[in-house]
């Protein structure tokens, strides 16, 4: 008997045999008790895929799990900046969904979720049809707030001024723009005011583009136009890299809050600062929880993010709807990162399995985060933290004295960063 099986039996026994069956959850009849029921997961990214796999594992196959995801394969945002630098290809950050089905019995539905009826407990699909759920897990990531960059609020403009803040076609298109740019040109990246997805991501991207320019187009420049007053993550480490490794290539300008762009001339406009014209203009727009969260009525903070109960990641407002990843209203010191989404997912998966078998969720959840950033193709720096549940404040708090950043960039951490990618992709999808 596997350990998982034993844990499952413990949960089952402690709950009283057949509790879930008596509460009339569908799916229990085939399990002979324990965790049963139907879970629908919207989004197959770091949060959704991890949740799906772990609910199947931890319910010993008892809970029926369906993932709704329009993309045929998972493409990772973390590591995708290396595709812009040219040291990796998009295939290197792409992983199949096949094992979720083959090894774990997760049902994959290649479609978009367009609406949620939280009374009837159904999810409507773009392709027609509805999926019923006992518990719904939304890991929908972000939508861009195009109304904050009006000239980009159409598909034509978005094909010219790229965000590449969702990995895939946009990443490849931005790489192509960089390759097509003449030596002596300017690449500019606009960063939104925090919170946004992947705090160190824009600074890592500046490093990767500079790494490419240094080798292939040494007269070219990288201009960072930051909506924030200072670098939002690993500031001293990035600034050291720009001053030393990329001296004369990277220029950092804080307090540049983007108001609009001129698409034809690739000009960025700001609230206070002078406009900037670039040869390749890359705009990371302000973000909020994706539209499906709005449909479910779980967007409760600033009309942007979803507040959750950190013991279960259930919405504070809507029963049976859990939210993971970038879409949530973060707790103190909690970044919107892939690693964090993976950790949200496992707390949620354990809670969902417990709740579906009539058990209380773990009262003392723990989350870790580590964001590795590539300075060159090999040298890496990290920031990490550990977050424990605070019973009084009912939130996750970083443990005082824990966490921190690298002392300097190193190739050893470059190897550990690739180790991280392999293990976290396997943790979600293998």
């Amino acid at each position, binding site marked *: 008997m596997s350990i998982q099986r034993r844990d499952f039996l413990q949960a089952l*026994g402690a709950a009283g045999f057949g509790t879930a069956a008596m509460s009339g959850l569908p799916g229990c009849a085939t*399990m002979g008790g324990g965790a049963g029921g139907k879970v629908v997961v919207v989004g197959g990214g770091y949060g959704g895929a991890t949740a799906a796999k772990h609910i199947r594992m931890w319910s010993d196959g008892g809970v029926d799990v369906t993932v709704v995801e329009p993309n045929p394969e998972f493409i990772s945002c973390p590591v995708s900046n290396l595709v812009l630098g040219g040291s990796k290809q998009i295939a290197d950050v792409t992983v199949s969904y096949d094992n979720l089905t083959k090894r774990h019995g997760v049902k994959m539905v290649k479609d978009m979720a367009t609406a949620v009826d939280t009374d009837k407990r159904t999810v409507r699909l773009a392709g027609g049809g509805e999926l019923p759920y006992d518990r719904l897990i939304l890991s929908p990531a972000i939508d861009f707030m195009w109304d904050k960059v009006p000239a980009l609020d159409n598909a034509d403009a978005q094909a010219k001024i790229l965000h590449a803040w969702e990995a895939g076609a946009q990443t490849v298109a931005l790489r192509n723009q960089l390759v097509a740019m003449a030596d002596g040109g300017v690449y500019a990246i606009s960063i939104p005011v925090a919170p946004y997805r992947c705090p160190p991501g824009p600074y890592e991207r500046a490093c990767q583009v500079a790494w490419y320019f240094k080798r292939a187009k040494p007269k070219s420049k990288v201009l960072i136009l930051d909506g924030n007053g200072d670098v939002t993550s690993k500031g001293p480490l990035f600034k050291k890299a720009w001053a030393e490794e990329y001296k004369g290539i990277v220029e950092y300008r804080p307090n540049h809050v983007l108001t609009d762009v001129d698409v034809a001339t690739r000009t960025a406009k700001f609230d206070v600062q002078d406009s900037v014209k670039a040869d390749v203009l890359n705009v990371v727009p302000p973000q909020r929880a994706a539209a499906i969260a709005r449909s479910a009525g779980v967007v409760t903070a600033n009309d942007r993010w979803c507040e959750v109960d950190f013991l279960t990641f259930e919405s504070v407002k809507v029963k049976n709807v859990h939210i993971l990843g970038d879409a949530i209203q973060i707790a103190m010191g909690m970044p919107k990162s892939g690693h964090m989404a993976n950790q949200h997912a*496992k707390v949620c998966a*354990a809670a969902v399995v*417990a709740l579906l078998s009539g058990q209380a969720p773990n009262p003392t959840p723990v989350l870790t985060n580590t964001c590795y950033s590539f300075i060159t193709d090999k040298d890496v720096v990290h920031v990490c933290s*550990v977050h424990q549940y605070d019973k009084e404040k009912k939130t996750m708090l970083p443990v005082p004295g*824990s966490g921190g950043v690298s002392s300097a960039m190193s190739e050893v951490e470059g190897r550990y960063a690739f180790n991280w990618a392999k*293990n976290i992709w*396997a*943790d979600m999808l293998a």
Partner: protein
Amino acid sequence: MRTIPIVLAATVAALGAVHATAQGSDPNLGRSLAATCATCHGTNGVSVGEVESLAGKPKDEIVRKMQDFKSGAKPATVMHQLAKGYSDEQIQLVAGWFAAQKAK
């Protein structure tokens, strides 16, 4: 359909109760703590990368290394910072859980 003898379930539940700690009565606490290590050490402690697997390692060894990371006695790139986020009791629990896993 799988049937689970009630006696077995009850026995295992009793064992679970014995192992429950001051942390709370969640019988899956060790497993949940171990899940916070999986992003770098692999699902269930079986690594598919360069960083070592933890599955099947003796409990004492994991506890000792974690304490050495905490104190700074064992040099590290990241573990000295992460280890400080876990209580001694949590380190005991997570080490015990990994020790009980099959090393693949």
